[in-house]
């Protein structure tokens, strides 16, 4: 399979919702180690709101991403609202108007998200944030696209890249957000945002694979 239909987006979105809801406590625990312990709660709030409002609606991938992004931006605040809000809005913008979404479309979507995020936050790879998950995931999709990989393969490679990106944060010193105040003491644990970003990318990929069967 080289692509999937934009109109099949709903299960993909719902998969991301369950990914966050199931990992609420886990994300809280990780954030508790070097942050303030509220990352699970913060993420859960936005995704639950989306679920409540859209569970019973019909929508395609780009619409769903936009609504989710809007909820995060307009109703969540903190750091996660603008960060993930920007990510999903950028993805929605790129997917907008497309019936079929190819591997290279996927790459465009995530690459645009990454670029807009870079503009918003100061963080880059190596700073122990969600950028460490997102950046290699985007690179993996780019590579898969260039190599002409099918959707399934591309997604598997993206997941792998996201996971090793996430794991790479363990040995880093935090440069942004609350944990950055800890300096050396922030080393040795995963970054909460890198973990939630990985969960989201995994769920996103799993959702698409489910849809394309």
């Amino acid at each position: 399979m080289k692509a999937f239909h934009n109109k099949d987006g709903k299960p993909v979105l719902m998969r991301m919702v369950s990914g966050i809801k199931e990992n609420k406590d886990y994300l809280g625990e990780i954030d508790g180690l070097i942050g303030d312990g509220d990352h699970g709660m913060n993420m859960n709030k936005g995704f639950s709101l989306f679920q409540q409002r859209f569970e019973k609606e019909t929508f395609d991938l780009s619409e769903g991403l936009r609504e989710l992004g809007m909820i995060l931006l307009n109703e969540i605040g903190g750091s996660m609202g603008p960060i993930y809000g920007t990510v999903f809005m950028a993805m929605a913008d790129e997917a907008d108007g497309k019936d079929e979404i190819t591997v290279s479309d996927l790459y465009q979507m995530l690459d645009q998200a990454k670029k807009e995020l870079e503009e918003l936050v100061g963080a880059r790879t190596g700073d122990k944030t969600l950028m460490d998950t997102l950046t290699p995931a985007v690179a993996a999709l780019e590579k898969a696209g260039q190599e002409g990989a099918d959707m399934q393969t591309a997604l598997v490679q993206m997941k792998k890249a996201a996971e090793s990106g996430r794991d790479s944060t363990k040995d880093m010193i935090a440069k942004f957000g609350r944990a950055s105040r800890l300096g050396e003491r922030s080393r040795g644990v995963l970054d909460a945002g890198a973990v939630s970003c990985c969960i989201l990318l995994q769920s996103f990929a799993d959702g698409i694979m489910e849809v394309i069967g």
Partner: protein
Amino acid sequence: MQRILNDPDNIVDEMLSGFLKANSDIVEATENKRVVKARCKGEGKVGVITGGGSGHKPAFIGYVGENMCDAAAVGEICSSPTAVAFLDAAKCADQGKGVACLYGNYSGDNMNVKMAVKMAQKQGLTIKTVIANDDVASAPKNQREKRRGVAGEIFMWKCGGAKAAMGGSLDEVINAAQKAIDHTRSVGIGLTPCTLPAVGHPNFEIKDGTMEVGIGHHGEPGIEVCELETADKMAKRMTDIILPDYPFEAGDEVAVLISGLGATPVMELYVLYNEVEKLLQEKGIAVYRAYVGNYFTSLDMMGATLTLMKLDEELKELLDMPVNTVGLKQKGKEKG
């Protein structure tokens, strides 16, 4: 956790509801339930707004009112308000002359304000910003742009708000607020941690008999943990951090603000002020105005922040302007 709460997840909404009812002579609700605006708007002036996470009472909503902020965006506990809340606050405050958004240097606030400014632009509304960075302990002097904003924000709002009330243009208001914060330095000492109501236990520790110098308003670690000192030594330590940073020097006139962090008895803030005043006097620095009380808190943390603003004639005039907010009421210049 010995706290007065219902569901901790609703604390911000409930607090806002109580705040609006109790202070209906000064503030009022808006269409966005996370935006509070002043009842008294002033006439055809530049709008002044702020915003930030909750848990710092009376900041931020307590500084909305006559001659200070026209509206404030309200976030969850220790979490930035949304971009839309900042945008809606700006819309409430706008009278066609633009809006000054005066807020503190935290990454969430920076992101949300950035987005609000963009959205406003698309709608033809100009927002300019000043980002408070008065907390000396939060980054070295050559990285001032990284420093957090703490209680010094009150001077920024006071001066920016006064300039707007005096009919200043948007640029003049921005310049006054920027000047105020540029002339301001703060440092905090934490004596106990604070507990987020939804978490239920402190998420960091300050051992009994110790104190954390340079602590942030959300419990951000300071620059040093040392043995608990007497008030005179604390005052010395705080002034030693602040004075050389600007620097403040003999012959200067300053405004002093000592704010409790929430759970320290105000009596003790006066004991601290007494020592600070002595040290300033020894150095030939004159106190033009002093503010001692719980002006910018961190939930139930014990401890205090010390803030100094170096004054010139312009800042004095702005500081002396009468103000009527929940957190700060002032009749205007009465000192000799």
